[in-house]
């Protein structure tokens, strides 16, 4: 008995550790993007995001303050004093220099000889003392190259760039609203159409019903790729070209099979008595649908709404084909991020923040409505 218990607890340890490893492996990539979006460009390129919480060694270039305004005359020698770090920054300098060719030849506390009596003294806390004659201490401030270990620092500046102050491609506000403009009608309209169709397929008797259901199951798996060319031509032909109307219609068409399938499966399971009783009491089909079926089907409606929302919000292909024209005024977030990947491939502070702005809304929806998403998945996978 004791042996069995011991084995059990060691197994449970193994299970716990494996799950921790699995979960870490799964959230690690997303975490990287999240942390990177709060770091400055310098920090991102200086060290991996996993060291964001640790002090990082960085090479910085500072410049002494304007000598003409700040110099002090000390018995014929002119001196400029200051600190290369802003107030409140407690960095530790490990080496420094005054020329870009030799950035680490001096130790903190050393005095650098700049020639002809001009000197520079830099302390370990970043305080400097630059002195020389009238001619030397003038013009522009002396440059100081510093290798310093700076404490971890997170900033929300990237977010204000992406959301408010950025220009052109760097600003996601327009794309964000465009995405919502695509998403919300493309989620609501198919639900309405599908709910009526699902009711008809579940609770109304008419010839050809089984055939229609089979057709919907078949259309469930038709790849989107087949629809692109004919529908582009169709949209050109009826004169709507590329635009919101086209993308709404396309999303509606592509979302309908799953919507009808999910809702029909759910509605078929509703108790027959309620519907029969309502019929006997003289309710019309329209009334039964609106007053009984719709409220009862709320969980299924919510599941599909989440699916369709995530799918239309995250979609790239449909938007690129049916919405985004040459002017680029109607770009959506996914398309803009792909553009950014091409043009700002190395600027991780921009990329990470843009990507995180775009995935924040789906993540929010996901965590708040996970219950319905799981339920929909279980009902929607064709058995």
């Amino acid at each position, binding site marked *: 008995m004791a042996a069995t218990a011991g084995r059990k607890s060691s197994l449970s340890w193994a299970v716990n550790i494996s799950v921790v490893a699995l979960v870490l492996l799964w959230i690690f990539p997303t975490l990287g993007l999240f942390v990177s979006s709060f770091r400055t460009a310098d920090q991102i*390129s200086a060290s991996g995001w996993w060291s964001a919480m640790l002090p990082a060694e960085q090479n910085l270039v500072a410049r002494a303050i304007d000598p003409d305004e700040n110099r002090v005359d000390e018995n014929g020698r002119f001196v400029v004093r200051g600190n290369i770090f802003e107030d409140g920054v407690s960095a530790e300098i490990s080496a420094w220099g005054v020329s870009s060719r030799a950035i680490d030849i001096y130790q903190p506390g050393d005095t650098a000889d700049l020639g002809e009596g001009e000197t520079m003294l830099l302390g370990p806390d970043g305080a400097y003392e630059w002195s020389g004659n009238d001619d030397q201490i003038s013009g522009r401030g002396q440059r100081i190259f510093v290798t310093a270990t700076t404490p971890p620092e997170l900033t929300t500046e990237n977010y204000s760039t992406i959301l408010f102050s950025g220009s052109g491609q760097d600003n996601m506000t327009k794309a964000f609203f465009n995405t919502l403009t695509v998403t919300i009608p493309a989620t609501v309209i198919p639900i309405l159409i599908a709910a009526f169709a699902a009711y008809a397929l579940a609770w*109304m008797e008419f010839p050809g019903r089984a055939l229609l259901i089979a057709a919907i199951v078949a259309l469930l798996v038709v790849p989107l790729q*087949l629809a692109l060319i004919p529908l582009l031509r169709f949209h050109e032909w009826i004169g709507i070209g590329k635009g919101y109307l086209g993308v709404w219609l396309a999303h509606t068409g592509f979302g309908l099979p799953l919507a009808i399938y999910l809702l029909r499966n759910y509605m078929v399971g509703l108790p027959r008595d309620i519907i029969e009783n309502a019929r006997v009491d003289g309710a019309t089909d329209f009334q039964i649908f609106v007053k009984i079926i719709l409220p009862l089907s709320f969980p299924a409606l919510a599941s599909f709404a989440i699916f369709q929302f995530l799918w239309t919000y995250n979609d790239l292909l449909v938007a690129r084909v049916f919405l985004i024209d040459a002017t680029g005024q109607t770009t959506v977030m996914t398309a803009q991020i792909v553009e950014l990947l091409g043009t700002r491939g190395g600027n991780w502070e921009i990329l990470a923040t843009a990507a995180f702005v775009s995935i924040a809304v789906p993540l929010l929806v996901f965590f708040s409505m996970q219950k319905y998403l799981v339920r929909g998945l279980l009902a929607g996978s064709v058995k």
Partner: protein
Amino acid sequence: MEAALLGLVTIIIGVGGCVGYFYFSNVVLDRFIYPAEGPNAGHNINRANQIRPWLFLFPAIAALGLYLAYPVFETLRLSFIDRDAGNAFVGFANYQQMMSEPKFWEAMRNNMLWLIVVPAAATAFGLLAAQLTDRISWGAVAKSLIFMPMAISFVGASVIFKLVYDARGADQNQIGVLNAVWMQFEGGAGSFLFLKLLPAFLILCFAAIVAYVGYLVVAPALRGAGGGLSKLLRVLVGVGAAWLVFISLRSVFGIFVADFPYGEPQQWLTLPFYNNFFLMIVLVWIQTGFAMVILSAALRGIPEETIEAAVIDGANPFQIFFKIKVPQIMSTIVVVWTTITLTVLKVFDIVFAMTNGQWETQVLANYMFDKLFRANDWGVASASAMVIMLLVSPILVWNVYTARKEMR
């Protein structure tokens, strides 16, 4: 803001229009066409009830027909005509042109790789995660975190993994996790353990599972059970399994022979052939949560008695899992597998965003997009779309078949 306003107006018009259509069409039917009063009220009610389903169905049928059914046939037609030659019928010329392109065969080869690796890996990880998380107290939280990538767009996931795969010069700090880990290996015992022994072991496990499944499928045919067609299918599956086992064994050999470039940061996405796997990881990462959720529900649906009986008979946890649980959820595993297969066949965003088909990573969906918008060759684009349709159609037939069987 303008766009937001436009969207709001459209929601109101669209939704209002839909509701209006359903409401007024019913009113018109009941009040004016077949009023439920007068001399033949009963007859009228019956007639109205025969028409009503079609009122409810009309928008859905119209949208489905126009946006899904019609395009299938139109694409088929377009694949046989040449737009530049005044829409002339050209027979199989588009297909011939497509088949003569090396890029197409590259896309086919990669798609086959995707079709094998991604569903297998996602289902296996999903099964593992489902089995493990069901046994612990904080399983719901763990599930939720593994499931989370489902909400992330393929494009977002591409950015996430581009950061993982990022490479810097050898003298700089690596900011991509993969290269940071890679730079820790220098060719010593640890490298041998983690980069040769461990992958070889994993591949051997995969080969063993494939061989076992292949044996299970082929064995009835060897005993002479079933008709000619089912025998043929079983033998085909057996040949496929044998081929996979051969490939696995060959790659195990390759791993031991290979000379890894230790100490050099790698541009993972530009290594031909292997970069495909780095792209697949993105989709596996996304789809594992889906597999886990469905399989976990299936595992919980297994009757307790079967497991208790196995425990009493002295089965160990592995035996219980592989011999009692897995066979009982086999149909769900098939569903998960086919659903992920469908996703794989349509995979576009990941390849488009990460490599755009460069460095031999082309897949069919991206090839089609390329032909459609860059080469502007609608004929070949349609032909490649039809290839995707062809690959999907066995699943389509199977789904319709099982759905009809269930309804009876």
